[in-house]
């Protein structure tokens, strides 16, 4: 069975204890989105400031509270997307979700070869985020790790609607 060390890697605990990009941004120009995990009460408040001229993430700030996995994932996500183009951020979201589900589908033994997921992962540098891989061995905690990414996705979808 998977041990606690698989779940709570040192880098995760570091992001939990010293979360990056905590704070708020003025709305507008930033866009604010809240994400909730209704089962456990975890909460992510995401402030995303996108530069419309370059379509890049000018700044990102995070508020809210939750368990170490949700908070570390949020912190890592904020570091990973800052300064990136929208296109790169969307790639990163897909890659992260693939990281979370590739193992999930293996665990469930659904027979898929995961090639679509592998394509999402190809060529994307996840860096620190790979430390969250261990979460998939604890299926009930996957939603903790994906909360901030779903919130980010929602923020991107909402901003693209306002801009188009």
């Amino acid at each position, binding site marked *: *069975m998977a*041990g*606690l060390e698989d*779940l*709570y890697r040192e880098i995760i*605990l570091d992001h939990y204890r010293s979360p990056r990009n905590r704070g708020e941004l003025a709305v507008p120009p930033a866009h604010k989105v809240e994400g909730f995990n209704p*089962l*456990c*009460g*975890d*909460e992510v408040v995401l402030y995303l400031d996108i530069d419309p001229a370059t379509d890049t993430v000018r700044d990102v700030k995070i508020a809210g*509270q*939750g*368990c*170490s*996995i949700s*908070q570390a994932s949020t912190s890592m996500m904020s570091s990973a997307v800052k300064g990136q183009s929208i296109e790169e951020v969307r790639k990163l979201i897909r890659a992260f979700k693939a990281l979370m589900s590739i193992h999930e589908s293996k665990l469930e033994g659904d027979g898929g070869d995961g090639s679509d997921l592998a394509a999402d992962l190809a060529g994307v540098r996840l860096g620190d985020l790979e430390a969250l891989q261990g979460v998939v061995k*604890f299926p009930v*905690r996957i939603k*903790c790790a994906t909360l901030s990414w779903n919130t980010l996705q929602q923020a991107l979808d909402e901003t693209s609607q306002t801009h188009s």
Partner: protein
Amino acid sequence: MTALDVATIKRDFPIFEREVNGKRLVYLDSASSAQKPLAVLDAMDHAYRDHYANIHRGVYTIAEEATVAFEDARRKVARFVNAPRKEEIVFTRNATESINLVAYSWGRANLKTGDAVVLSHLEHHANVVPWQILAAERGIELRWIPLTQDFRLDLSNLDALLEGARLLAVSAMSNVLGTINDIRPLADAAHAHGALILVDACQYVPHVATDVQQWDADFVAFSSHKILGPTGIGALWARFELLDDMPPFLGGGEMIRDVRLDGFTTNDLPWKFEAGTPAIVEAIGFGAAIDYISALGMDAVRAHERLVTRYALESLRERFGESLTIHGPTDIEVRGGAVSFLFDGIHAHDVSQVLDEDAVCVRAGHHCAKPLMRQLGVPATTRASFYVYNDEADVDALIEALAKAQKFFAV
């Protein structure tokens, strides 16, 4: 030693034969759902194997046997809460459905714009959201009894809150804090103001001898799965005259006396509120669970849980001191066996994850009581809850696992 022989009781529950992660199962989540004794599993198995048929329909032997077993379960439930008449027990899916039934049927027939329903800050979502739905639909006013510093209902303003109210809907025992609310004075106060009282007794009935007549309650909701019985069945007790006056909840078979093209007439109580084929075998299992716990004796159950809970509160305080906050009364006389706590700097989810390594099952989260969690100013708590199969050794296992969590997160 305690009032119950836990070693013997544990042997009645097959689940305790298994291990989790190579460790003895320490089940401390009975406030969420209780484990099932062999007596319940056997009763249900027997019902399916030997006399299963739909009830109140067939004239053949096994249909008659099934009907008798089902109605016998209703009699057991009625006796268990000292209901004056067995027709006052309506089988529902769970306590949540029981409260929804009252909100839907009694609420829609009796409440109009401007009427007030009084709730408290420690209610489970099951006794909040049905009234919020009704409030949005009917424009009724919801009023809230606040809590005192020691996690009890603050009744200092009760008369003002009840002024002009039609219903007081309150929990008999908090699923988060463990607080036991003294129902009789609340019922008296409600009645003095011309209001009815609904008691969410989901956490209370499994642990303390319940007497709906002594409470002088009007509606009482509870479920089977927290009293060692199966899921999928619960009960609403209500005074006969109230049920008799209330319009039906769900429409369909069983709840009718006659149906014509231009309308229908309703069946007698309690079947008027039991549309469709009910959870027959679950009801039989519910009855078996009541037999099991009645044989232990509810006074012994309460005495046992007081001892275990006191031991848990003392052990937590002794071992962890200020680094752990207990959210709930410390006075054992006014609380049940649900103990919520929070470590400084460790999220409840992370605590329960570490505990799972040692096969210690606790609940982490908001416990379906988000308004209460906001009052407490915490996002989530860890909750250990005790029942007839828990003893001091289980508390010790909890304490050791918690010490491990504290060490792991180095707070």
